[in-house]
């Protein structure tokens, strides 16, 4: 049986997803997520020793395309969708210390 999800786990996941949750919401989602995970834990009860791992639900492999250039989008059209543009580039807020 996996460990129960804690309020700290939920706070961490919320932080990773850039969600600002109130204390009440943390409480609420901890309970809800625990219920979801309990449901998933049912699978753990099954004996799957003889079942090969599935890397994809669709039984396909090697779906490939040839290395041939196709037209790109018109830049004006692309940049028209952006909230802010400068020097033909997307202008975004600073991202201090968050580079991957």
């Amino acid at each position, binding site marked *: 049986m996996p460990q129960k999800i804690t309020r700290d786990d939920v706070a*961490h996941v919320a932080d*990773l997803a*850039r969600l600002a949750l109130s204390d009440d919401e943390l409480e609420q989602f901890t309970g809800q997520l625990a219920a979801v995970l309990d449901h998933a834990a049912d699978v753990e009860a099954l004996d799957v020793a003889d079942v090969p791992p599935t*890397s*994809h*639900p*669709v039984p*396909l*492999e*090697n*779906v*490939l*395309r*040839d*290395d*041939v*250039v*196709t*037209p*790109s*989008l018109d*830049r004006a059209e*692309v*940049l028209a969708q952006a909230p802010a543009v*400068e*020097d*033909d*580039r*997307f*202008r*975004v*807020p*600073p*991202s*201090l*210390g*968050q*580079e*991957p």
Partner: protein
Amino acid sequence: MTESGSRRGADEGGTKQWELVVGLEVHCELATATKLFCGCPNQFGAEPNTNVCPVCLGLPGSLPVLNRQAVEFAMRLGRALHCTVEPSTFARKNYFYPDMPKDYQVSQYDQPINAEGHLDLPSGQRIGIERAHLEEDTGKSTHVGGGGRIHEAGHSLVDYNRAGVPLVEIVGRPDLRSSEDAKAYAAELRAILLATGVSDAKMEEGSMRVDANVSVRHPGEEFGTRCEIKNLNSLRSLGRAIDYEARRQIDLIEAGERVIQQTRHWDEADGRTHTLRSKEEAYDYRYFPEPDLVPVVPSAEWLAEVEASVPTLPAERREAVAEAAGVTPADAALVVERGLDGLVLAAIAAGADPLRVLTHADHNLAVEGADALDPRALAELVTMEADGALTATQAKTVLAEMVAGGGSPAEIAGAKGFEAVSADALGDVVDGIIAANADEWDRYVNGDDKTRGKLTGFFVGQVMRATQGNADGKAVTALLEQRRGG
């Protein structure tokens, strides 16, 4: 070794010896025509945001389709690094940073396409390769305001032309023990990338990017805490950054502090590394399988084709030259790097003295068109030189003519008026010069080694003038010594 001491960090200061431990992670952009998952051009230096489409912009409803050529390049590189090619899958690496419009990067995680290989340095040292996997490159952010430095930026501008360009990330084992070895590893990997044709491997354009994991320890101890250094745009930066970082870590430990695991940014201008972020606050990337891509399981036929496309590698080429010339593989490194090994081997096969051929290739053939030389003509030239028909300087001049315009060395030497001075004639010239410079000769015969060294230069110069440069300097020196003794 002319660089400021790869071992400076390891030997200086403190009573106990320090050992440097380095592992490199190298990202290289593959030389495909298009991106990894869409048909946008894979092109350096295009106008910003012109090579973009719904797939690489991460627009809703778009779906990636894997580029066959990228897979093939990755496998070819894997085999060149002696990896096994495995069935592989893709995963999403999730993070919030505007260089990927999707907020995740498609990479390979638990099932990489290449696993467990190695790379042999010219010195013979073998460096382990943990994996070499496929992933997509990110867009390019430019930080504006605050002097352009990332930690001071006011805002950022993003160009997505590079987003989705195919990369292979080559993860090396921490088997390197000096900055010189690290540079040799990066240079050898670059040579392999070029030889296999999978990447143009230009560090200055970012098509080959090196991150260094650096730690220090006392020999025989467990690995120390490591720091990862980014922003290394040249082999020189790589060497400097590793030496700086090793020194920094040693100073910390010797001051009774501890190294904190973190990612650091190399600043070439001030010659230091700076904290980018601590590992404690590093991302939990929440990798999960990419549902839009299916596994890659190369057939035996495809693998055989890839295997056949792997060219003879630099290490094997160095071995071949070393064997033919009776030198060490390290001595053969330069000619292989210059692509002159074929010429050298053919000239040796045509009967030329191997060491003289290597000397010419190392010193006189670092020029455009040298690889097109007729090896038989080179062999002929080297033989003329060995027989004393040409001096070393004359041979060099004739060789330059041969590279520029072809032709036979005998004809070029004839046209230039290079005539071998016979041993008898040279002896007469030397005797004449000695007679005409009795004072200098007296000091040559009776002076100390330093004086004699200076006067050797004087006498050789006089003989050269008398023979219009047709005398061999070494032969003149030998005659002077003979006259002194006799």
